[in-house]
């Protein structure tokens, strides 16, 4: 079920924005429109749906319109054209046509935000910052303090409730920002480059924590970043923006494996694909059965399958060995052939091969053999980013 539906959204900055549309329909781009009319295209004709519980990343260079698009969702920026509908608490909220009071109510309850430079209130303690949204909702003091303390614990800041933001480090401040965003209980969370101002190490830590939080809480997150590695790591899906337009949308792997334009290809050029490429993508899927119902993965390793192509038994140099999931290779003592799921990232496979055995790994989907990954598959995947051409 979609949580946010964005349909044909435009934002044109400047006086009489309607003037831009004639030029846009004639195919003029952002720079030409600005030269002709002085109007700036923030975003142009954006449509997509974001699913419930999805972490959707908007990615692009500076000035490409990421923040503008994000802010259209809670109307800190008023879209010039188009429609945005939010689905939360089982209701539909057409935010683009909402009047002042309903807009305020939607912001109060359905959608909250985490800011790039934290935007914490300097005169409020950590607890009172986190409780801010609840205070606006009219929750009584005792209850909102209790809830705020709970969230402060969730983001790992216990003991700092009575500190002021100026007494905290950047990473801690953004934890407060995150807790404040989560505290209102809104289903939809907007995050505009929340980790850009942090040190690389803290940044990675915060990303991991956000992923952990996503496991525990049911939230839909719209996340803006200009950092591709961050996008690939966090995003269930990613959209790439260029000059106000959406140039590609897809899973991290789709973006890496199949960049649609030069712009996107340039972007992913230096990305590390090992966390994004999945076993299924790089695996050899062209399988041939030998006479005794075995699949030969290399000179010494074979997998025996039954009539439904389900894995039955592994063989190394003709000796039967069990097939074990590579998830717990660390606990294996005997010889075995490792198996992975189709979605296992390449990096995990590489790690298992490095410390357990360099034999090929069989890719199983509900115990059915769909392919295998050899050293050659891995190298090819990394070099060509999984592209087949």
């Amino acid at each position, binding site marked *: 079920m979609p949580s946010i539906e964005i349909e044909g959204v435009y934002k044109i900055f400047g006086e009489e924005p309607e003037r831009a549309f004639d030029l846009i329909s004639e195919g003029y781009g952002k720079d030409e429109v600005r030269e002709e009319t002085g109007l700036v295209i923030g975003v142009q004709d954006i449509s997509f749906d974001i699913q419930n519980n999805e972490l959707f990343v908007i990615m692009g260079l500076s000035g490409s319109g990421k923040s503008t698009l994000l802010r259209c969702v*809670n109307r*800190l920026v008023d879209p010039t054209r188009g429609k945005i509908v939010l689905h939360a608490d089982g209701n539909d909220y057409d935010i683009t046509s909402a009047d002042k009071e309903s807009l*305020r*109510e*939607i*912001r*109060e*309850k359905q959608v*909250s*935000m985490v*800011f790039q*430079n934290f*935007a914490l*209130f*300097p*005169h*409020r303690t950590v607890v009172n910052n986190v409780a*801010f*949204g609840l*205070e*606006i*909702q009219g929750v009584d003091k005792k209850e909102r303090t209790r809830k705020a303390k709970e969230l402060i614990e969730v983001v790992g800041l216990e003991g700092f409730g009575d500190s*002021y933001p*100026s007494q905290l480090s950047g990473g801690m401040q953004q934890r407060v920002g995150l807790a*404040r965003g989560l505290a*209102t209980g809104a289903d939809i969370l*907007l995050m505009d480059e929340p980790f850009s101002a942090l040190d690389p190490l803290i940044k990675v830590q915060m990303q991991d924590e956000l992923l952990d939080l996503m496991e525990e809480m049911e939230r839909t997150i719209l996340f803006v970043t200009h950092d591709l590695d961050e996008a690939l790591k966090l995003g269930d899906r990613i959209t790439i923006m260029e000059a106000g337009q959406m140039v590609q949308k897809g899973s991290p792997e789709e973006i890496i494996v199949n960049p649609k334009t030069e712009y996107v290809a340039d972007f992913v050029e230096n990305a590390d694909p090992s966390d994004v490429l999945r076993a299924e993508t790089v695996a050899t899927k062209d399988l041939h059965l030998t006479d005794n119902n075995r699949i030969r993965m290399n000179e010494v390793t074979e997998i025996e399958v039954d009539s439904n192509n389900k894995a039955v038994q592994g063989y190394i140099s003709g000796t039967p060995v069990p097939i074990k999931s590579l998830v717990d290779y660390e606990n294996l003592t005997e010889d075995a052939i490792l198996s992975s799921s189709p979605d296992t990232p390449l990096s995990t496979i590489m790690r298992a091969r490095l410390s357990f055995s360099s034999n090929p790994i069989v890719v199983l989907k509900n115990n059915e053999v769909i392919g295998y990954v050899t050293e050659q598959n891995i190298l090819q995947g990394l070099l060509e980013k999984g592209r087949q051409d």
Partner: protein
Amino acid sequence: MSYFRDSFKKMVVVLLGAFGWVSIYPFMASARVGASLIELPAKPVSIPLAEWTVAVVDWLAINIEPFFDFIQLVLNVINDALLAAIQWIPIFVVKIAGLDIRFPVWSLILFFLLWYLSGELSTGLLGLITVWLSANFGLYIEMTETFALTLTAAFIAIALGIPSGILAGISETVNHMIRPVLDLMQTMPVFVYLIPAVIFFGMGAAPGAVATVIFAYPPSVRLTNLGIREVPTELVEAGQAFGCNYWQLLTKVQIPVARPSIMQGVNQSIMLALSMAVVAALIGAGGLGGEVVRGIQRMRVGQGFVAGLSVVFTAMILDRATANIGAREE
């Protein structure tokens, strides 16, 4: 401590200002007398602005008199109540070595009040010493008069100034309307305030208070306005993003964030109020300023000096009491 140096500089300015005005006053007065004795040829005047001004002022004096009476009443009530309250507090006299040493209870009250307000024991002690000294200099009454006049005027200036500043901070229209008024108020020489004040309110504490209110009003407005405008956009947006309405945005975000700047305005208003309250002695407002005037008119340097010193001490305690209020809750 640079803070101490700063506030000391302020005191010196206040004192010099007060002395400056008070010392040229007799000359101004005698120059006027001299001028009327010597027959000067009439200067040709083509635009009789002076006469028009008189006409306007006369008209105002007659037609808006009830309004001025009302202001005068309010000022007098607050001022007199404050003064009565302070002066009601007893003074104990103890004979030590043949001298009557006075111990005003108010100095103790002020000690605790200042200690609490500034959070520093030293400020409390300063207040204690100031009042004790003034009582034993024989300036207790004058000191309390200046105190009451300053606080009355500053209170009204701030009570009007902060709301005006908030309005100017959130509305461009108000900002454009109020700015020239403030510029005018701040560029006008100090004694020019006294003329209309005397015309409308006569001599005494009330015109002094009116002039003081007008003089002390602009900094509160300006710094409140500035504080509100300098609230980072991101904080305002954070407020909006969490569903604040107009009023909540103002009271929960803009005003609290602007608070340090607003408190700076309060501090400046009080300091300006004190300096004007001293100058207002020229139109009979009394207090320490009156002592300074008398000291100079009668060539009693010592008397003027002691009164001036009391002004400096008063300025110091007012400054230190209010300078820290903004910083304290950060």
